[in-house]
């Protein structure tokens, strides 16, 4: 196997870009975590260390447990074994230090965008006057390109706008860690690209930048957004590779997608998936119809 090493070996770094993780402050550490749902093992022995300010893309086929992993990180589920530490403290439940953007249901439908954001602002900064909260909500909406939409309700706007608002809410919550569960998965390609670019821009900014764990099944998306890509295999979900993304600085989407390095990584991830499936076939653990690739 060339290019990407499996987990048992050291993390592969294509160009030796950036310092290694352990030099930076650790934001999140996942230690030997397993998770089962209805007695079915969903995740097995997950180990991850995420540095502050890192953008981690968790990539995997459907059914690999990537959403479960994100829910564990959020504190919405509890692991059956192992532990997860956020800023050194054990995660015991959901908390405003970890903001989450779900696929398409982050907002309360009975509140307009301003009031949805005001809930988050109210938690982030206690004791603000109502008018002040509304003003801040509008500032966050401006930030994600929703100028003048403060009084709209979620049902009045498109899926792309709802996800913008959900991102704004997470930013308004002020969480140092942002967890995103296929947030652009339900969007059309044009809006997906726009929102990816918005996210890149927000994450590079010094004021809004933060640690991000972004779950996706889209290889291009993972490579475009992530500093590091965690590839999950299926049945049960395990980390099958960690890839440091070698593209420096401001990525130009089209140049990037044309580059041979990008193509190579894409092929390698694809090969990893196939290897994982074959391994399971050999083990006789794949029931037909399950474990479909992406």
């Amino acid at each position, binding site marked *: 196997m060339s290019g990407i090493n499996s987990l048992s070996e050291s993390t592969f770094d294509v160009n030796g870009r950036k310092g290694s993780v352990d030099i930076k402050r650790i934001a999140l550490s996942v230690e030997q975590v397993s998770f089962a749902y209805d007695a079915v093992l969903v995740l097995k022995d997950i180990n991850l260390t995420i540095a502050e300010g890192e953008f981690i893309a968790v990539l995997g086929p459907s059914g690999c447990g990537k959403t479960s992993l994100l829910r564990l990180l959020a504190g919405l589920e509890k692991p059956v074994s192992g532990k997860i530490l956020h800023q050194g403290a054990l995660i015991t439940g959901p908390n*405003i230090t970890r903001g989450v953007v*779900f696929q398409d249901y982050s907002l*309360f439908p*009975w509140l307009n965008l301003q009031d949805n954001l005001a809930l*988050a602002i109210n938690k982030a900064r206690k004791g603000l006057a109502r008018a002040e909260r509304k003003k801040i909500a509008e500032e966050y909406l401006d930030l994600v390109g929703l100028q003048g939409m403060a009084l709209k309700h979620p049902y009045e*706007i498109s899926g792309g706008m709802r996800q913008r608002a959900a991102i704004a809410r997470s930013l308004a919550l002020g969480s140092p860690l942002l967890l995103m569960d296929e947030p652009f998965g339900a969007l059309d390609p044009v809006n997906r690209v726009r929102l990816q670019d918005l996210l890149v821009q927000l994450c590079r900014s010094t004021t809004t930048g933060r640690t991000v764990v972004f779950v996706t099944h889209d290889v291009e998306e993972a490579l475009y957004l992530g500093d590091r890509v965690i590839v999950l295999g299926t049945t049960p979900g395990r980390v099958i590779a960690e890839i440091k993304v070698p593209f420096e600085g401001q990525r130009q989407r089209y140049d990037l997608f044309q580059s041979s390095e990008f193509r190579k990584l894409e092929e390698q991830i694809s090969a990893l998936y196939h290897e994982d499936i074959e391994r399971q076939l050999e083990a006789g653990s794949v029931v037909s119809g399950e474990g479909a690739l992406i």
Partner: protein
Amino acid sequence: MTEQQHYSASHKKGFKGFEGVLLFVVLGLSWQLTTTMLPLSNTSLYPTPAVTFKALLDSLPELLKGTWSSFLILVPGYLLAVVLGALWGIVAGSVGWIHRAFDPFAKVAAPIPPTVYIPYAIALMPTFRVSAILVVFIGAFWPVFVNAAAGAASVPLHYRDNAGILGFGRFEYMRRVVFPAALPNIFSGMAVGLALAFILLTVAELFGANQGLGRFVQYYADYADYPRMVAGILYTGMVTFAAMALLDFVKRRVLFWVR
């Protein structure tokens, strides 16, 4: 913005809705024809539309007074049922041990036809009005409670997730999430409860009132003044319809976000 989509809420008018009007026309015509053309043995029992309409106009002041009297029973009883039914339903639907403690009682008490309470309520309470309010309350409470509890028990998981992420405590979660999420169910319960409230109101008035809508009908039936009695039935139907339409209007305003 190109992202913006327009959700048109316009319904195609035209011939739709005409069918309903047609039925009214057919019913009105057959009323007119059966009362004038058929050789009826007791004509006073079958007043013609014209006679009934005149009776309605003549008794309008009395009917309005009766409506006011009836509403003094209906409104307090119904509103109390809505407030307590919704609050207690939300609590019982979302707090496990309260649900387990209250559910067996609710299962036994809710199906009792509330009309059977009427004689005892009248005997027990100091005035007829208070006893009728009590009966209306009991009748409207159960549908509101049962629906609110069901709505609170089935709050979608993703609302709960969002509440957790926003750091809501239990009370804030109930107030800001469970209550609005259960509102569609609460309104369903309110509609059933309102229909029941009218039934119980008029039945209670047949028993012991000296004024009110049910009393009006009973009174003129006793005196065999059937034009007025039929007018009273029609008028009561219109009042009930108006109340249901008002509730529906409020529901549409409050549940604007339900699609």
